[in-house]
């Protein structure tokens, strides 16, 4: 008995020794130095993938070198500003980044909860070259993207011209809509059948129920939707133009259509959180990144820009879609305060519809 249990003890002891060793080695996961306002440090959100590389290459590094700064890069989980986390951080006086990109409803939320620092217009000279509608007291709007119909060009012929193509009975079990940013999906149903985005009501969900036999799934991220096309699960879905451009570039038979009823254009407002440790540099960065060069890089990637001076090649025009004010004017006008206010009700109806 004693003999047999000896290895056990040795094992436990060596385990304890290993623990001690790890505890000694651990500080490399450093206790974060909670730097006080250091004018030489700036903290940016980074992203994965080629878009993240682009930001790093053309938005952050040149600026950091130009001003001889030290940058801390914080991964932007899921490509979305983590509002629930930021709210607590800002309340504690320590937001994790110095510039945060906010969707429309996130901006309303942030303002109602007093999370942002004003950005004076004269602090950003580049505002002079921007379309007026992208300038706010809290920072500029940029990175324009569109929500339209993505479809498989080999299977869906002729090309769809209406959102109602999703309801076509020949696509039973072959289309999907988005769970991510579902407020957009709900407004899409409304403009398809009612000609206006609001109100989201029982009629909206009656149309969704009619769509149900065609739906194979509700996708939760752009990557999910891409995978659905690749694995031939779906032939059509409402989607984002940037992703479609990339899939097309990889040789997949996918195209982006702007339906006749209208489409959606969104952008992010780049704001500075209260408690930012380097607001001065953050504002300088906003001015830098709004310039033609950094904006042009983004256009090459398929996103629209608020800067009037940026010019487009024909391919870029086709990919970016929102290349002039006339096209943007065709976009459905969204009311983000209303979206924020009504999201609880919309989500309840959405859940009831899904479970029903």
């Amino acid at each position, binding site marked *: 008995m004693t003999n047999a249990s000896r290895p056990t003890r040795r094992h436990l002891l060596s385990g304890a020794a290993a623990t001690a060793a790890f505890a000694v080695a*651990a500080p490399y996961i450093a206790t974060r130095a909670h730097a006080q306002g250091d004018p030489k440090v700036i903290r940016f959100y980074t992203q994965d993938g080629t878009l993240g590389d682009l930001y790093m290459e053309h938005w952050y590094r040149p600026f950091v070198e130009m001003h001889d700064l030290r940058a801390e890069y914080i991964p932007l*989980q899921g490509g979305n500003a983590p509002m629930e986390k930021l709210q607590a951080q800002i309340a504690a006086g320590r937001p994790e980044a110095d510039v945060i990109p906010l969707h429309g409803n996130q901006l309303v939320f942030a303002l109602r909860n007093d999370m942002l620092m004003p950005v004076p217009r004269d602090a950003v000279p580049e505002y002079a070259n921007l379309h007026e509608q992208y300038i706010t007291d809290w920072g500029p709007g940029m990175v324009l993207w569109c929500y339209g119909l993505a479809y498989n060009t080999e299977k869906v012929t002729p090309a769809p011209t209406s959102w109602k193509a999703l309801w076509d009975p020949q696509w039973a079990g072959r289309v999907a809509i988005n769970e991510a940013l579902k407020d957009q999906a709900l407004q899409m149903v409304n403009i398809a059948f009612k000609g206006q985005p609001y109100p989201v009501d029982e009629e909206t969900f009656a149309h969704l129920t009619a769509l149900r036999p065609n739906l194979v799934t509700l996708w939760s991220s752009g990557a999910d939707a891409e995978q659905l096309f690749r694995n031939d699960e779906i032939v059509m879905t409402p989607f984002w133009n940037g992703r479609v451009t990339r899939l097309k570039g990889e040789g997949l038979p996918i195209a982006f259509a702007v339906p006749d009823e209208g489409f959606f254009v969104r952008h992010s407002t780049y704001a500075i959180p209260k408690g930012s440790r380097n607001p001065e540099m953050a504002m300088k960065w906003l001015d830098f990144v709004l310039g033609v060069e950094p904006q042009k890089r983004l256009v090459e990637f398929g996103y629209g820009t608020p800067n009037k001076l940026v010019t487009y090649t024909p391919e870029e025009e086709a990919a970016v879609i929102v290349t002039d004010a006339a096209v943007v004017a065709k976009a459905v006008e969204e009311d983000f305060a209303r979206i924020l206010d009504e999201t609880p009700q919309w989500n309840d109806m959405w859940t009831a519809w899904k479970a029903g």
Partner: protein
Amino acid sequence: MPERGFATPGFLALALFGSLATAFLVLPLAILCVQSFTAESYLSFPPPSFGLRWYRTVLADPEWRQAAQSSLTIAAIVTPLSLVVGTLAALGLDRGPMRGRNVIYGILISPMILPHIVLGLGLFRIALDLEIDDSLWSIVPAHLTITIPFVVISVGASLQSFDVGLEKAAQSLGANRFRALWHITLPIIRPGLVGGGIFAFIMSFDEFIITYFLAVQTRTLPLEIFDSLRYQVSPSIAAVSALTIAASAALTVALILRGQVMAGGRIVQ
């Protein structure tokens, strides 16, 4: 029960079931391993062409390496700690008064049932106040909270079927309580300890949402995987998984060769 033999219908049925269960358990992992050798930039079945492209990508990427290192470090600190604290608690429960035992047991395993997002945000607010967010000082206790229940359950189940008479016998032969515990009880409840330890390690290694709240610059594997998947379902995650599986397989083989686990098996037989 060796005398019952291996050719009885009951045993054959069990063996058949065992093979099916193994196939079921291994299939997705096998698929992942195959996928990790794809030469394409996306996942599909079957992969059109093969290559080592994704292993090169993953192994050359400092971010993946750093993430693996953090995850291993955290799990390596959390596992022994949760084994000690959890086993102590399970022993205390087992030896303590009957009255109130269920209540304490319920409390001990309750962190399992709280959705991690709720626990995560609560812990995050405390960590912010104490200024220990984004460090091991908050991540380790947070992980302990979700791993200890598994140890308590696993060890507790072993203790319930443990015949206390053995420990008494050792004490009557002059061993003190600690020696009796060390030489008799712990070896016999070893399956429970091993099980609890494995669960603790894995729960910590795979924990996502709590770490997501607590971490700012600290990167763990689940965070890295989640991030990369949000952007694109890329075969790099298959390569990472294949590497994890290979490492654990190597560890298992090493254990078999060292005869560690067999010694444990012999005690009860």
